[in-house]
């Protein structure tokens, strides 16, 4: 039996790596001696032959190691499960889970077996694991040696080791990119799949154009709820929710765009180097504040402040309002807008500014008539990205905007947003396939499509700027 300290994945990785390092030097000196004896200059620099051999040693072995680790766990679990089922024939599934966990703990020595049967099974379980681990050790080393042997036999002066290695790297980068894309596709398709399930039970028209959103409660009067199999359902008209989202995002942009843009203009055009070096990082600190902090700032400070102001003005305003949430969200987005805009404005070349000044523009004219128009596509991009952040923002609205789904354009009303509703639908006790839960996916995909469109517009607008100056 190989000691467990060596057979765990991390130490095995180290062992494989060290083997690969040794193989690297073997490969390197091998090509040197080969090329001397054959009197032939190798195609690539000699360390590429070392890398080539080392890669063949390490990479297949590590893949086998990881796959083995991933595959043996469930196999062992399945085997012990069948042992358990044989020993305790009438167990319900909860009991089975419990015993499986017990097994795990017994075999790692955390607890003692409660009875003999369990101990026997636990011993078998432990033995299986040891066996699998030993096998893992042997197999991955075997693969490593096989890889090394294969690679070293390939090494000859005319072999294009560098090109092979670069080809491998190219494929590796491709795989990384593919993983990123595939996960996105995976997420989107799961959203899509669940949404389709939702829409198979609920009319699309009612969802997209309905003005009544009350997924949790059943209303006694009409209001759009339907009855299936005698169960009263909520109604899922997303318009008020989407309207709330847009209202809050609009208020946020109303705060963030002017302040962010002006701050960016100040930093890019007027501030001295010293001021800029202080102001810019300070603004960026704002971007690092967790949104939950903004959330309680909105809920506990800004919201009540607005309510009190309203009280003095003789208005009855709730402490939770679109204004409080949107305003604070705007503050959150300011550094985002100002930083991106500052980059865009600073990227306008010196020569354009010189041209504007050289013909007798004042600084103000230079900025408004030449620099900002030149930066316009990039600025639009920054604003649109800001909007998609505002639309996707959750924490602040959860805490400060309220939960009442009402179709309103009044910033002093309390509203709810798509993100808040998703949180409410999926937290607490939920059955996974109830209509209520599924509606969260429909909301999610709607939100996704909206932000996706914004981002596409942002990208295409700023791309149109390409090569403009």
């Amino acid at each position, binding site marked *: 039996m190989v000691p467990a300290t060596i057979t765990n994945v991390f130490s095995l990785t180290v062992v494989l790596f060290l083997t690969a390092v040794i193989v690297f030097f073997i490969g390197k000196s091998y090509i040197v001696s080969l090329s001397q004896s054959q009197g032939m200059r190798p195609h690539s620099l000699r360390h590429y032959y070392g890398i080539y051999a080392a890669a063949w040693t390490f990479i297949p072995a590590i893949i086998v190691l990881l796959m083995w680790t991933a595959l043996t766990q469930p196999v062992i679990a399945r085997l012990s499960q069948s042992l358990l089922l044989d020993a305790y024939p009438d167990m319900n599934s909860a009991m089975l889970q419990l015993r499986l966990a017990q097994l795990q703990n017994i075999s790692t020595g955390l607890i003692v077996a409660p009875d003999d049967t369990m101990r026997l099974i636990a011993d078998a379980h432990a033995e299986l694991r040891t066996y699998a681990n030993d096998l893992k050790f042997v197999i991955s080393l075997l693969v490593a040696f096989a890889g090394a042997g294969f690679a070293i036999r390939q090494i000859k002066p005319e072999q294009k080791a560098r090109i092979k290695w670069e080809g491998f790297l190219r494929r590796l980068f491709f795989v990384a990119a593919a993983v990123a894309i595939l996960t996105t596709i995976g997420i989107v398709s799961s959203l899509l799949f669940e949404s389709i399930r939702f829409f198979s039970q609920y009319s699309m028209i009612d969802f997209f154009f309905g003005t009544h959103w009350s997924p949790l409660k059943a209303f006694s009067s009409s209001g759009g709820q339907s009855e299936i199999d005698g169960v009263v359902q909520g109604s899922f008209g997303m318009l008020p929710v989407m309207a709330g989202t847009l209202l809050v995002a609009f208020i946020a942009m109303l705060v963030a765009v002017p302040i962010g843009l002006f701050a960016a203009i100040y930093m890019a055009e007027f501030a001295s180097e010293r001021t800029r070096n202080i102001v810019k990082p300070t603004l960026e600190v704002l971007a690092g504040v967790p949104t939950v902090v903004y959330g309680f700032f909105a809920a506990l400070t800004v919201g009540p402040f607005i309510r009190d102001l309203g009280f003095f003005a003789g208005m009855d305003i709730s402490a939770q309002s679109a204004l409080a949430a949107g305003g604070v969200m705007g503050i959150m987005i300011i550094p985002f807008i100002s930083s991106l805009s500052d980059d865009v404005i600073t990227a306008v070349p010196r*020569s354009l500014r010189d041209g504007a000044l050289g013909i007798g523009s004042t600084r103000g004219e230079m900025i408004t008539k030449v620099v900002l128009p030149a930066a316009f596509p990039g600025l639009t991009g920054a604003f649109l990205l800001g909007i998609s952040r505002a639309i996707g923002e959750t924490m602040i609205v959860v805490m400060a905007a309220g939960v009442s789904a009402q179709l309103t354009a009044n910033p002093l009303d309390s509203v709810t947003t798509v993100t808040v509703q998703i949180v409410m639908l999926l937290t607490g006790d939920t059955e996974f396939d109830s209509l209520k839960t599924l509606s969260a996916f429909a909301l999610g995909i709607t939100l996704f499509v909206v932000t996706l469109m914004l981002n596409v517009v942002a990208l295409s607008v700023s791309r149109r700027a390409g090569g403009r100056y």
Partner: protein
Amino acid sequence: MTNPTKLSTHDLNVFYDEKQAINNISMAIESNKVTSFIGPSGCGKSTFLRCFNRMNDVIPACRVEGQIMMGDQNINDQKLDPVLLRARVGMVFQKPNPFPKSIFENVAYGPRIHGLVSSKSETADVVEDSLKRSGLWNEVYDRLHDPATGLSGGQQQRLCIARAIAVSPEVLLMDEPCSALDPIATTIIENLINELQERYTIIIVTHSMQQAARVSQNTAYFHLGHLIEYGATKDIFTNPADPQTEAYISGKIG
């Protein structure tokens, strides 16, 4: 034949922080002639040229001391508004720098900000006139509203000249206007300079001795921030008084 003096400097010194880039230069520029500034890179030609429309003000580290007279006005007086000066003394840069707007808007820009035009038709007239004088009209009259950045390098540079002359300046400063252009575009611009000389006083910084010989009547040779020799171009090129000038002209100094 000497023309009246358009611009003159008196004991002009320019510093970048502590480093002196121009030493005590006094010279007079004749009106309606082309004066070329030549000399090795880094000798201060651009710095000196930029004094005439106060573009050095834009560089925080730069300090210009001394008098620059235009008529009876000292244009280096800090009380004088450089914005108005720059309408009288226009500038064309080394790299063509059209604004990212349409051809029309590029030329209309100057007249608009200086309030020289008050109606659409007036603007159109100024634009047409400037484009004609810069020799670009025939190439662009049917696409005035296309982006200026779609023009070729040489056309862009002529557009920049049109943009500069649209505000009816008295002086045109050109800092190596052809260095980013191919030989054909260069020839076109050189011919244009010859035509423009009737109406404007032109100062051109150039790398190319042949260009100085072709376009200018007067030439000034600079070295390490000093004005070494200044006189009629044909004298400088055929019979330089100073050995340094001679060495530069014959290619011994880069």
